C-alpha cells in the first residue's frame, strides 16, 4: 500500500537542501526562475527526481548531519528526535535511495532499537511516562509515536481481557 501510505507521503515532504546546477524557471517564489548555483530547499519528492537527472545536487539534510549523528551515537534516548525530524526513520530510508551511506543505515537501526525499549516501557503507562520522562515521549518521531500508540492499545486490550471473567 506504499502509494497510498499517508506516512510515506508525509516523509516525502521532508525538505532537502540542494544546489541548482542549471537555472530552473518556475521553481522560485510565485513561479520565478531560480538561477544556477542557488541554494534551495526542496521537498524530497522533487529533489530526488531533479538530482537523478543532475539538475540539482543534494546536500546532507540537517537530521543526518554529523552533529546529530554524534548525538544519536552518544545517547540515542536523550535526543529529541521529533525536533530534528518528525519522521526520521522514514526520511532516512528515503535518503538512502539517493545516497549510499552504510553508516546512516546502521545508526538508524541502532537508534530505533534502543529507543524502542523505552517506548515499550512507556506503552504500559503513557500518562506516567509523560510525567516522568516527558522529554523522551514528546521527542518521539511520527513512527515512534505510532509504535507507542499501537503498543499501548495492545496493552490496554490485554489488561481489559485479564480483568474479564467468564460470567
Amino acid at each position, binding site marked *: 500500500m*506504499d*502509494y497510498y501510505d499517508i506516512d510515506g507521503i508525509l516523509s516525502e515532504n521532508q525538505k532537502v537542501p540542494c544546489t541548482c546546477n542549471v537555472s530552473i524557471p518556475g521553481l522560485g517564489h510565485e513561479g520565478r526562475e531560480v538561477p544556477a548555483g542557488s541554494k534551495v530547499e526542496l521537498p524530497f519528492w522533487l529533489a*530526488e*527526481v531533479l538530482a537523478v537527472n543532475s539538475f540539482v545536487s543534494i546536500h546532507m539534510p540537517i537530521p543526518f548531519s554529523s552533529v546529530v549523528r554524534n548525538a544519536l551515537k552518544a545517547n540515542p534516548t536523550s535526543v529529541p528526535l521529533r525536533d530534528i525530524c518528525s519522521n526520521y526513520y522514514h526520511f532516512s530510508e528515503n535518503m538512502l535511495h539517493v545516497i549510499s551511506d552504510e553508516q546512516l543505515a546502521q545508526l538508524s537501526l541502532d537508534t530505533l532499537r534502543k529507543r524502542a525499549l523505552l517506548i515499550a516501557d512507556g506503552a504500559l503507562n503513557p500518562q506516567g511516562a509523560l510525567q516522568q520522562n516527558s522529554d523522551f515521549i514528546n521527542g518521539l518521531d511520527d513512527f515512534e509515536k505510532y509504535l507507542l500508540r499501537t503498543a499501548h492499545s495492545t496493552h490496554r486490550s490485554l489488561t481489559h481481557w485479564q480483568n474479564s471473567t467468564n460470567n
Partner: protein
Amino acid sequence: MDWDVDELLAEPTTEVEQDYSSLCTQWLNERMAPELLPFAEDVVTRVTERLRAQLETLQSSIGTANATGYRSVLIQIELERIKFVLRSYLRTRLSKIDDYGQYIQANPSVLLNLSSTERQYLLRHQQLLHRHYMTSFLRELPMKMNKLDDTIGRTSMVAAPDMDSPVFCMVNETIEENLRVAENEYVTLDRGDILLLKYSAIANYVRAGAVSLI
C-alpha cells in the same frame, strides 16, 4: 514434561475434527499473511454443509423438549463459534481483496486463489472504485493522467502485498534444508520452533502446512 509441542501439534483424528482444525489454521494464516492465500474451498464447503445440517436439525426440533434443553444450548454455542470463524475468515479475505484488488486482477495466478463469489465481488468493486475516482477528480485531470496503474519512481499505483513484512510463525514439521533469510544468514526450522521473520522466507511452507502463522 513433554506435553507441549506434541499436545499442540496432535493431529485431530476424524474428518470432522480435521476440517474444523484446518479451517482455524487457514483463518489464522489468512489473518497474518500479507498475501491472499488460496481459498480453502473444500474445507469451507464441508464445514458450511455441516453447519447447515446442524441448523436444520435444531430447527426441526422446535417444539420438542430438545429445543430448549442443555444439549441444544451446547449445539447453539458451537454454531456461533463456527459461524464466527467462517465470518472472520471470509471478511479477512475481502479486506485483502479490497486492498490489493488491482494487483490481484492483473495477476492470473493470484486470481486463482479467489473463490468464484470473491471474483465477482472483486470485479464489481474495481468497477465501483474506478467510477468513483473518475467522477471525483480523475476525469478533470489531463487525459494522460487518468490512469489508475502508473508507476511513479519506485512506487506503483497498483498496491501489492509486501511479502517481506515480518510474521510470527510456528514450525509444525522440521524442515530439512536450512532457510536463507539474508545474505549469508540461514536459520533451521525444527518442529515447535517459534520465529519472527519475513513472510517471503516461509510463504511456501505456510501453504504446504509445514509452518503456521500465529
